[in-house]
């Protein structure tokens, strides 16, 4: 067990990678065995993530050096700079990996019957596991170049999965847009990595954070990083590809794409708070993030109100919700240099933003899954053509209601607890942020109610006489996420104390992250 915990960071990356390439081999023998294999390997990954999370909570940052005689030997004997590839897991990384493991397990279970009628299922699951592996790598890596590599792995497999149903023209277009945006974003990241490497001769985030000077080139690199990750998360005005790619993907993949955009958000936080943490001009960058976050909130929800395509409508809401997280964490960044303000409201604002990531990661995939369930039998994503589906799809209806109440921030559901944390803390920074947040929340509730009415309520339509409840595996996947929502609803303070505050503290103070690799700071 001790060895398992020591090697957990690399195992969490390696198990999905190996499983990805074993999947088609097992699939040649039997598709049932393949499905069981995919689910079991993901369950084992979830188990490893939770053991690692417990270990990080007790023993602090977990450093894993690849190729060293002992995994904690981050500096080779006689060296003062780290030269090996290092995986570094702190409170923030572990928080995101918990979300990613749970949602990817739910997405894999959901896919079992959602894509049951498609061809090429072996390749679907291979790509899905590769995407899981890319996401974990992105969260755990302590090395800028590996950040780029894992970002590309997640993007390539994600784009291929969006375009998986090749018989439709719109899936190809959505996948193409996604890969173009990802390719440009990751090349910008690579360029920025080159700028930093050229000056400091290192790729290790912890070492770079120690020696960084904030020269003109560093500012250019910071701008490139932020634009690239903002593009990948779908921040307004770089959001135009976002609903196109999200609405055409299979619903299980859309759920996972939500979390990849959170993973890119994680990378942006890591760059701002850890890499540039000691030198960054925090108020300026913070205000830039807050202003674009407000725009994201508002534009996302106003675009969502008049959408007729159920998945597209939910994608615009995903954009709008991402704005809350940017605003919450942006307020924390804006007051980063001032310990007093951090203590009064900065830490709470960041905790609210991070808590909202967790909540969003539960209810948004759930809503996308219910949207996929509607599409599964009706064959259309057009809300105006649906109606009366609550008569046949009772589980889906109940789960949709849970998701809707949660995303609109209706007390006592989990969306409310993170939103109230954001509202109360950012109000002290600037009241206009809270006012916008509440208006956006009202518009969210209004549009979800409208969508609920047109899809589920009313008399049974004659063309959907044959519709029945979706297959069991899709229900199980949705119930996993709904159980997550209900758990967070019942124990919000437990979640905040055990996962959210360590994550926020890891952002506020980058010193433990740095000294875990480079030793004590002189």
């Amino acid at each position, binding site marked *: 067990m001790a060895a398992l915990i020591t090697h957990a960071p690399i195992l969490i990356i390696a198990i999905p990678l190996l499983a990805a390439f074993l999947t088609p081999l097992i699939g040649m023998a039997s598709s049932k065995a393949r499905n069981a294999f995919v689910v079991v390997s993901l369950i084992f990954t979830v188990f490893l993530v939770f053991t690692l999370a417990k270990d990080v909570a007790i023993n602090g940052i977990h450093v894993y050096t690849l190729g060293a005689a002992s995994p904690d030997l981050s500096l080779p004997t006689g060296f003062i700079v780290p030269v090996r590839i290092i995986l570094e897991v702190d409170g923030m990384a572990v928080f995101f990996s918990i979300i990613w493991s749970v949602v990817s397990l739910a997405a894999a279970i959901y896919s079992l019957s959602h894509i049951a009628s498609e061809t090429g299922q072996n390749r679907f699951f291979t790509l899905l596991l590769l995407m899981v592996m890319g996401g974990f790598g992105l969260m755990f890596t302590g090395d800028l170049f590996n950040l780029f590599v894992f970002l*590309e792995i997640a993007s390539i497999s994600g*784009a291929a999965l969006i*375009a998986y149903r090749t018989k439709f023209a719109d899936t190809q277009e959505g*996948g*193409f847009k996604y890969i*173009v945006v990802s*390719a440009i974003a990751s090349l910008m990241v690579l*360029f920025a990595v*080159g700028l930093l490497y050229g000056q400091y001769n290192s790729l290790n985030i912890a070492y770079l954070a120690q020696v960084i000077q904030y020269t003109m080139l560093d500012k250019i690199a910071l701008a490139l990083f932020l634009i690239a990750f903002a593009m990948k998360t779908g921040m307004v005005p770089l959001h135009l590809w976002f609903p196109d790619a999200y609405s055409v993907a299979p619903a299980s993949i859309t759920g996972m794409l939500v979390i990849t955009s959170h993973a890119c958000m994680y990378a942006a936080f890591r760059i701002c708070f850890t890499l540039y943490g000691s030198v960054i001009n925090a108020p300026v960058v913070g205000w830039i993030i807050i202003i674009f976050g407000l725009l994201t909130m508002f534009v996302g929800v106003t675009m969502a109100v008049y959408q007729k395509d159920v998945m597209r409508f939910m994608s615009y809401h995903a954009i709008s919700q991402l704005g809350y997280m940017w605003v919450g964490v942006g307020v924390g960044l804006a007051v980063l240099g001032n310990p007093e303000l951090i203590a009064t409201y900065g830490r709470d604002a960041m905790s609210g933003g991070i808590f909202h990531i967790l909540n969003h990661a539960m209810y948004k995939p759930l809503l996308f899954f219910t949207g996929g369930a509607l599409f599964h039998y009706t064959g259309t994503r057009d809300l105006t053509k649906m109606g009366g589906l609550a008569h046949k799809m009772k589980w889906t209806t109940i789960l949709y209601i849970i998701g809707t109440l949660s995303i609109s921030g209706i007390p006592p559901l989990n969306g409310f607890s993170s939103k109230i944390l954001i509202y109360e803390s950012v109000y002290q920074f600037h009241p206009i942020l809270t006012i916008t947040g509440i208006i956006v929340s009202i518009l969210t509730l209004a549009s979800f109610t409208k969508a609920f009415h047109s899809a589920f309520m009313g008399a049974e339509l004659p063309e959907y006489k044959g519709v029945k409840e979706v297959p069991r595996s899709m229900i199980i996947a949705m119930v996993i996420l709904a159980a997550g929502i209900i758990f967070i609803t019942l124990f919000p303070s437990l979640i905040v104390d055990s996962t959210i505050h360590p994550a926020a503290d890891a952002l506020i103070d980058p010193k433990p992250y740095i000294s875990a690799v480079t030793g004590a700071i002189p």
Partner: protein
Amino acid sequence: MMEHIPLDFPFLAAALLVGISFYIIIFKKNLIKLIMGIAMLASGVNLFLVSLGYRAGGNAPIYTDVPEGTMVMSVPQALTLTSIVINVAVLALMLTMVIRIYRHTGSLDSEKSRKLKG
């Protein structure tokens, strides 16, 4: 010959490639040209990485029979190789998608082959 070329010349070339490729990506409507723009962007970034690793008069980091003098750190070359491999995969995937878009819509113009709007 190498000593006659100013050392920052490759950086200017890389900057020029990146600039032209952004122009292509933003303003060209043909999807194949868009892909060519991304390929150029990748080449520009790769050229930048390789020129970062160049040290005048350095030796290759091969440890047998090493001559006197400075040895070149091989990290930028390794980065470039990895990045080239990744970009081949990205470009291949993009081209397959463009082929499928052309089959479905009969057009490579990004204005005409659009299905998703609003």
